[in-house]
């Protein structure tokens, strides 16, 4: 059941847009395809929808091979960024459209429209023409129009990107709530890591047509498989600093030039897995501690480059070597540009990345 993709590949001339992608989405699961533009996420979605034919590979929806089926026979609902709502028709007629072409009886149509309209809170605009609606209402109509035919699989391509930040936050929650209540299987395409993190049961992170990691938001955030995933998830982004692996007196160190970090506990893992001595130390801003005094051995001296209070948190930017480091401090944190500070890393949160392969070693 659900969606099952096997070795899916799509070539446009010489360009390989999707490279041998395999993915399983369980019934009732919310899965996001996340990546920067050009990563192949929309191409994948369009192949699932039947708008593009794969170069090779198979797509199963509810255990049925759909490769050769036209979109209307795939039991899918589709919602795009630009709504595709009929502006000249009323909301009611927009909602009824999919059912009418399926020759659903009139009383059944009316019943479903009532249900869907209530659910999406567009009951009061049913008689209005879609062209006169607000953006969020329009998006609700677009969702309602797809939802009303009770698709096995709901496919959404950046449906919220035309809305402003506040509305996007509202719609995010409503979409998620709707999906939970209907136990609807959803594949959601987005380039916004926050949307993917907050809405999905699992996230498929893609880059250059290849699946980078497929797991729950918490695993993706806390245990990224490689530097791409580590960098793409989280805001502000993870800090990276080039280091080299050094051994001395039976101990192991990450040498960053301006500081050196004892990593003896990971000595064996690093030796076994790293392809060279060039490593990258990676740490999230919330795992960097700022101190006024060098109160621990591993404190690294720096100075404040910028302080950005953002209400509940304060983002502090500080140079380390030739890189800028970001740390998240409490909302009340205050410092002036140029202030002398020391930083330290929350040791269990330090990641070590193999620079050559980009793979996370620790």
């Amino acid at each position, binding site marked *: 059941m659900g969606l099952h993709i096997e070795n899916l590949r799509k070539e446009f001339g010489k360009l390989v847009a999707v490279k041998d992608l395999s993915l399983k989405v369980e019934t009732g699961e919310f899965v996001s395809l996340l990546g920067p533009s050009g990563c192949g996420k929309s191409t994948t979605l369009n192949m699932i929808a039947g708008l593009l034919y794969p170069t090779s590979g198979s797509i199963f929806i509810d255990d049925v091979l759909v490769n050769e089926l036209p979109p209307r026979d795939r039991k899918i609902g589709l919602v795009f960024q630009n709504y595709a709502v009929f502006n000249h028709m009323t909301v009611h007629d927009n909602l009824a459209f999919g059912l009418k072409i399926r020759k659903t009886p009139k009383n059944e149509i009316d019943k479903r429209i009532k249900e869907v309209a209530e659910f999406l809170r567009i009951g009061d605009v049913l008689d209005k023409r879609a062209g006169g609606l607000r953006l969020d209402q329009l998006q609700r109509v677009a969702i309602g129009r797809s939802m009303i035919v009770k698709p096995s699989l709901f496919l959404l391509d950046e449906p919220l990107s035309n809305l402003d930040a506040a509305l996007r936050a509202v719609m995010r*929650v409503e979409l*998620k709530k709707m999906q939970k209540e209907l136990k609807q299987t959803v594949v959601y395409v987005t380039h916004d890591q926050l949307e993917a993190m907050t809405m999905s049961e699992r996230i498929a992170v893609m880059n250059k047509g290849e699946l980078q990691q497929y797991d729950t938001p918490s695993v993706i955030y806390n245990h990224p498989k490689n530097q791409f995933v580590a960098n793409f*998830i989280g805001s502000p982004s993870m800090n990276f600093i080039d280091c080299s692996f050094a051994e001395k007196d039976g101990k192991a160190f990450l040498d960053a030039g301006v500081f050196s970090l004892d990593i003896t506990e990971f000595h064996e893992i690093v030796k076994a897995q790293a392809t060279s001595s060039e490593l990258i130390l990676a740490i999230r801003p919330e795992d960097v501690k700022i101190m006024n005094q060098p109160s621990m051995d591993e404190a690294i001296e720096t100075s404040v480059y910028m302080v950005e209070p953002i209400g509940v948190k304060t983002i502090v930017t500080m140079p380390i070597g030739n890189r800028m480091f970001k740390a998240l401090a409490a909302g009340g944190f205050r410092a002036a540009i140029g202030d002398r500070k020391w930083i330290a890393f929350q040791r269990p949160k330090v990641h070590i990345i193999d620079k050559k392969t980009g793979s996370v070693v620790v």
Partner: protein
Amino acid sequence: MVKVTLQNLSKTFGGKTVIRDLTLEINEQEFFCILGYPGAGKTTLLRLIAGLEKQDKGDVYLDNKLVNNVHASHRDVAMIFQNLALYPNRTVFENMAFPLKVRKMPRTELRNRVQEVAKSLSIEHLLDRAIANLSGGEKQRVAIGRALVRRPQVFLMDEPLSNLDALLRLEMRVELKRLQRELGQTFIYATPDQLEAMSMGDRMATLSEGQLQQVDVPEVLYNKPKNQFVAGLLGSPAMNFMEGSCRQSDGRTLLDVGSFQIDITRFHKALERATGPELILGIRPEHIKVTRQRGPNSTCEVVVYVVEPLGGEMILHLGVDGGLIKAFAPPGFEAKYGDHVSVEFDPNRIYLFDKKTEEAIL
């Protein structure tokens, strides 16, 4: 390096009032942010300062000099737009030299000026490249550089970062603020993004329907909003609001919100300012403690609607009295859709607004 003073400024377009009797003083060398929704009048305000629009009423002073009748080209003000307005097929040098050529500056002086500015923006190495081949951040710097070569006294920026992707926006935020510090120029920056306004502004103003709501340092707007509009505009996730009415009981004053009451007797003095018993209770998500079990200080019980993991933290959407409130989950807290949990409002961090006037009364 100039002070900007606006006095009783008004502007209407075809009968619609866009700027309404606005008085504002922006200090020299200040990074001043104007925050408001699209349509609030931000761009019009900047254009009035630049002299690109003429006000119907009121005065504009640059450094105590009345400039009402001074043409835009003689105001010594530079404006940077969201779409940057660069010539894509020309080189960086040509773009930056353009305003000087128009002013018929001698060649050597022009060359020196452009080079000096390019150096200060770290784009010296790009001078011979065509604009079309630059990254978003580089283009941004060229646009600023083109404004800088004229050595204007005031920089007006109209959502200059909105076309950049999220990562770059974060980086440019820091760079712009640093640049302003180093130049020691007055920057007036319009944005719909509360994060930008709070993180960059030395002071900021919130604008709604052409009227200033509150002008102060970001911290004061965040912690002591003057009215419900400002309270709701700043902070992400936004402040929670609940309607309630005051009633007396055994000599105590209680705010009855429906499923729970809050004792507000100690705000007795402040409550005299309210125009009626109908109030709005406001509380920020970070000032709500979520617990599994009901405790002695619990405010009420709620149902978990949506769980939004952000990676480092988790936002819970909780159903109370038919509405939703948002709270941060404590570290390690596990919750799923439908769970019953308790919340505790920090009694020292609640806000009260008059329902009629929307003014803060605490």
